[in-house]
């Protein structure tokens, strides 16, 4: 699905997004009189790239920092540290981690987000037309008539046909699947370079889910949009993403080609995650998950490997050394593990 960008100018070789040392530390219980020294390390030194038109899956359990990462890329959360170099090939590469004011508003045309819950992400008192046209209104694009045409186009594109019948309805009149299609239309109407999709199908029923997944994949192909697809479901990531990054407690522990990682996961956490996925075949008995209980605290965590307390293969070296760097270990993918 990730059409490799055709190099037409020297600039085109650069990825759309280059994330370097991205961090988010939330203060844990600050006080007015005492300087806060306790921080929740939600995202801690995350590095990856997202190519033009590529879809990268960010996979991990709840609380691992995947949503925080996604929100930083669209600047709904300000990073504590690090760089996000954005380059869509039309202008100068910019570090969007520190943008403010007008340039930030300008950047929002290029970066959009689709949220998990289609019941919570829409204003119940605004019509579908108002909802989808809002980004155009905020960015001051087109006249009302232009906007109406664009919204009709988008509705048809996301499969809500005939568009006319949807324009002036309210979110409560639509089903979950239809609402998620409205959310997709709203995200794509400004023709963004990339979209952060935060579990866009996890609230939908199976039979409706595939339709929405298919739509997102088709739109990515047709419009050349890059996705950061956040999900806890490896099976969904397999169908949506050409590459995946597995996150554990604020760190990326494994990143690479999706099929490669599913075929031979190198990090013990990825292995555990994969072996825990139920198999829709009653004759298959899965191996038990090899992983211990106990989780490292995220408040000023120790320097050692974040996965150390749960790791089945850790030894003294892992205990005394810092969190391992992401490296190639004779495999396609990069892994952050001393023992892999």
């Amino acid at each position, binding site marked *: 699905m990730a059409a490799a960008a055709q190099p037409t100018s020297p600039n085109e070789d650069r990825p759309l997004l280059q994330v370097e040392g991205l961090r988010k530390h939330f203060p844990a219980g600050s006080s007015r009189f005492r300087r806060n020294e306790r921080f929740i390390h939600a995202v801690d030194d995350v590095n990856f790239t997202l190519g033009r038109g590529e879809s990268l899956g960010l996979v991990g359990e709840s609380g691992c920092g995947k949503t925080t990462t996604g929100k930083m890329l669209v600047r709904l959360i300000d990073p504590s540290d690090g760089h996000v170099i954005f380059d869509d090939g039309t202008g100068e590469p910019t570090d969007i981690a520190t943008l403010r004011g007008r340039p930030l508003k300008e950047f929002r045309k290029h970066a959009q987000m689709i949220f998990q819950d289609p019941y919570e992400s829409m204003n119940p008192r605004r019509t579908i037309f108002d909802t989808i046209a809002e980004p155009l209104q905020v960015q001051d694009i087109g006249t009302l008539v232009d906007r109406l045409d664009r919204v009709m186009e988008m509705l048809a594109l996301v499969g809500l046909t005939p568009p006319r019948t949807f324009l002036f309805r309210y979110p409560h009149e639509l089903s979950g699947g239809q609402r998620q299609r409205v959310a997709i239309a709203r995200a794509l109407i400004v023709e963004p370079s990339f979209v952060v999709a935060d579990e866009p199908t996890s609230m939908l029923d199976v039979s409706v889910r595939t339709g929405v997944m*298919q739509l997102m994949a088709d739109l990515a192909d047709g419009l050349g949009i890059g996705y950061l697809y956040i999900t806890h479901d490896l099976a969904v990531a397999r169908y949506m993403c050409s590459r995946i990054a597995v996150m554990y407690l604020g760190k990326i522990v494994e990143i690479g080609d999706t099929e490669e990682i599913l075929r031979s996961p190198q990090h013990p956490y990825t292995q*555990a995650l994969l072996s825990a996925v139920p*198999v829709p075949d*009653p*004759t298959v008995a899965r191996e038990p998950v090899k992983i211990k209980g106990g989780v490292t605290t995220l408040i000023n965590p120790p320097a050692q490997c974040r996965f150390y307390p749960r790791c089945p293969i850790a030894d003294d070296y892992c205990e005394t050394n810092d969190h391992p760097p992401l490296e190639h270990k004779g495999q396609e993918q990069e892994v952050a593990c001393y023992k892999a």
Partner: protein
Amino acid sequence: MSGYPLLAVEDLTMHYQTRAGEVCAVDGVSLSLERGQSLGLVGESGCGKSSLALALLRLQPENAQILRGKVLLDGVDLVSLSEEEMRKYRWNRIAMVFQSAMNALDPVYRVGDQIIEALEQHSNAARQDMVERVGELYKLVNLSPNFIQRYPHEYSGGMKQRAIIAMALACEPDLIIADEPTTALDVIVQDHILREFGNIRKELNMSMLYISHDMAVIAEVSDVVAVMYAGKIVEYGTAEEVFNKPIHPYTRALMSAFPSVTGEKHELATLGGEPPNPLDLPTGCHFHPRCPFATEVCAEQEPPTVRRGDHWADCWNPPED
């Protein structure tokens, strides 16, 4: 006692009265469950699977009415019991694990006390014995006994779900109804809980009705599978039969719509349309507007039952055997 299956549901029908009209949530459901067996009930949201579970326990909301049918537990019809008598069955013989563990515990009471409260309803044992029993239950579901005296907010999601399971097991019921008990949990936690659940069930020879929309989870926990669509059971059979040789087009669609991490990456099939509006169900076979094999007769008449041994489905156009 012998001669009867543990649970036999016959032609159970339940309607909701709503302002918009009458909704037939459970429509002539019949099924049976042997002792020690587990039945997986699978279907999309709104298909009536949770309503069926509530009707079995007679916990349906006030606007619901059981119109006809029987729920036989060891041959005793629960539908005809008085509320007083029903209470003796609830929790003691049939217990339920609810969907959202987050909301099933009272936030202002210690978890241990909530389990004791359930025990007190059904036994006259001394308090000290009950406290010990809670300790045993915690051991069974792999929770640290230190947590007995703690409040729900101090538990993680997985721990709450374990506590709810402990509570359901408190009176050693014959049948446990589990309504999407792991849906809100992460995969690794889900895996632990499913395994523990399975082990405990075998140890105590309990029967289970497991409700889920997740075909993969159903495949792992069930001996027998029932597929529900718009209030009706549309396919029923052993897990092997239903998964390997599904008859109903809906079952087949559900399976091919499900992404898997193992095996070759197959194309996901999309089931067109939306789940039916319960206020205005399609005529004939309720599935016909979304069915790729529908013919004229499907829209006009209710489908016949196709039987292949104990495996059956309601369909006009079943595939060749």
